[in-house]
């Protein structure tokens, strides 16, 4: 462990420098200093929080599965992408147009039904994957990681073969695609809608984990799986249900992410597996609380760094993601809410 003052300095010095830069110094950046351009600042913060919502939906499923079963599901991004394609397929059928779908064509039902159906499809696929391939390798982390990695490679090729390399449309419902004014800036309602869905998912997840018997069993299983079994509880059933829920969350994330981007394209499976990994490394593997914290921190860095880098240097904003990871890992090697084993 680092000495205490070093870890404190590693957190507060960069934070103070960043705050000073954003508030006063950030001339010649796309957003401008926050005291002069409060509207831009608020919009950037909103971008961060709403993107964090999407990150949370995807990463919470990932962390839930890892926390209970120690399975690093490398196919999590494939479930995300698969769900987005399924939703695209259903939505285009419901709207009755193949290309050039406009949000105005999309009724609320033509968004919610694809969301639930796509979530259900990948939840079933996740269950099959767990029952047919992972159950026999329980406790063998590396094998499970390799199996799911293989699935993700196969799934990526199969999706590419079926849906092609061109981006396919997936749209928000027309009812939420408006703009509203905040501190003199226009802001998209759909981003707040995405945050709303994420909050709903978070609330339901919290209720499930904290207010139901199965939630208690899951939390107990994260702590000490063998002891849960010695109390006569059939944990294999709990494993299966957790995999279903985790996969469903990846699917919901895929439909949100696809709608957010306006389209579904090959490659986002890998990107979203990486996003999930970044969130859980920051927050701590296996902790839902950590997924909230990790999503917020990562979301903020993703939103703030391009907005407040000098024009012409915004390409380097990804460096700040690595800086965030480096600081968190230096101060808390197991992540913010991770447990040291």
């Amino acid at each position: 462990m680092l000495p205490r003052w070093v870890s404190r300095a590693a957190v507060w010095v960069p934070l103070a420098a960043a705050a000073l830069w954003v508030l006063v110094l950030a001339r010649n950046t796309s957003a401008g200093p926050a005291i002069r351009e409060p509207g831009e600042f608020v919009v950037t913060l909103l971008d961060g929080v709403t993107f964090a919502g999407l990150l949370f939906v995807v990463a919470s499923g990932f962390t839930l599965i890892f926390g209970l079963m120690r399975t690093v599901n490398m196919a999590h991004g494939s479930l995300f992408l698969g769900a987005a394609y399924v939703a695209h397929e259903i939505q285009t059928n419901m709207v009755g147009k193949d290309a050039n779908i406009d949000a105005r064509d999309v009724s609320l039902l033509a968004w919610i039904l694809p969301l639930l159906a796509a979530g259900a499809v990948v939840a079933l696929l996740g269950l099959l994957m767990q029952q047919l391939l992972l159950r026999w390798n329980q406790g063998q982390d590396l094998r499970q990681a390799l199996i799911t990695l293989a699935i993700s490679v196969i799934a990526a090729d199969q999706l590419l073969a079926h849906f092609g390399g061109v981006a396919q449309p997936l749209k928000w419902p027309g009812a939420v695609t408006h703009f509203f004014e905040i501190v003199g800036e226009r802001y998209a309602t759909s981003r707040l809608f995405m945050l709303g869905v994420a909050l709903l998912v978070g609330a339901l997840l919290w209720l499930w984990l904290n207010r139901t018997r199965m939630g208690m069993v899951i939390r107990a299983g994260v702590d000490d799986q063998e002891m849960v079994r010695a109390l006569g509880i059939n944990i294999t059933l709990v494993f299966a249900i957790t995999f279903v829920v985790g996969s469903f969350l990846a699917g919901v994330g895929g439909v949100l992410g696809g709608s957010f981007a306006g389209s579904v394209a090959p490659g986002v499976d890998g990107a979203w597996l990486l996003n999930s990994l970044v969130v859980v490394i920051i927050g701590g593997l296996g902790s839902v609380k950590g997924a909230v914290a990790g999503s917020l921190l990562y979301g903020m860095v993703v939103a703030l760094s391009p907005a407040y880098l000098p024009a012409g240097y915004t390409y380097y904003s990804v460096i700040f993601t690595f800086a965030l990871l480096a600081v968190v890992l230096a101060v808390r090697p197991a992540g913010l809410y991770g447990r040291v084993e």
Partner: protein
Amino acid sequence: MTAADSLLTVEDLQAGYGTSRVLDGLTFSMGTESVCIVGRNGMGKSTLCKTIMGMVSPTAGAITFSGRRIDGLAPEKVARSGIAYVPQGRRLFPSLTVEEHLAMLAPESRGKRWTPTAVYELFPRLADRRSNGGAELSGGEQQMLAVGRALLLNTPLIVMDEPSEGLAPSIVDDLIAVVHRLVSEGVAVLVVEQNLRAATAMSARQLVMTSGRIEIELTAAELLESTQLQSTYLGVDA
């Protein structure tokens, strides 16, 4: 073997980790009574508990409980067959409150002898700490919760691994009283103990374990009286 001896029978049990054999031809049997397994550190007492519970697979031998073979079963199956476990070090769930530890097992206990309410009556201190996390309890409270959790399974046999470890003498007395109460209510208790006072107060039958087998069976009185036996089998120098 008498009829009373037939609740749990362990015959020529062998088990270990990797290539090291920890249990080496262990044999004993018990009925609805309390039995203590005593012995020095490293003689395989905890491994015996884990092997009975299905956490360690035996390589040879048999464990028969209520007339059914249970060796090689998974832990949840062993528990379901009627054996509750109070592990060494309590192994509470840090993420769960006291109340949740009991609520998790409450549905199955409905209408039976031990419900969460009955556990709170037995251990009133737990009732005061309902919403505390498992890690926020004192050692004694933790042990009460570990015992209470096991009671909710309402099993005919409870296996306790070093329940008095690290507890204040007054709490150990409470624990001894609980063991007597359970036996008087028809529940068998198998206790692994290092603490001579606790072990001899909990049961008349003292099975001394050395190098993975039961070396000798003594009565509590014999063990208490003889400093010779104590230093030979327990390493206690009086």
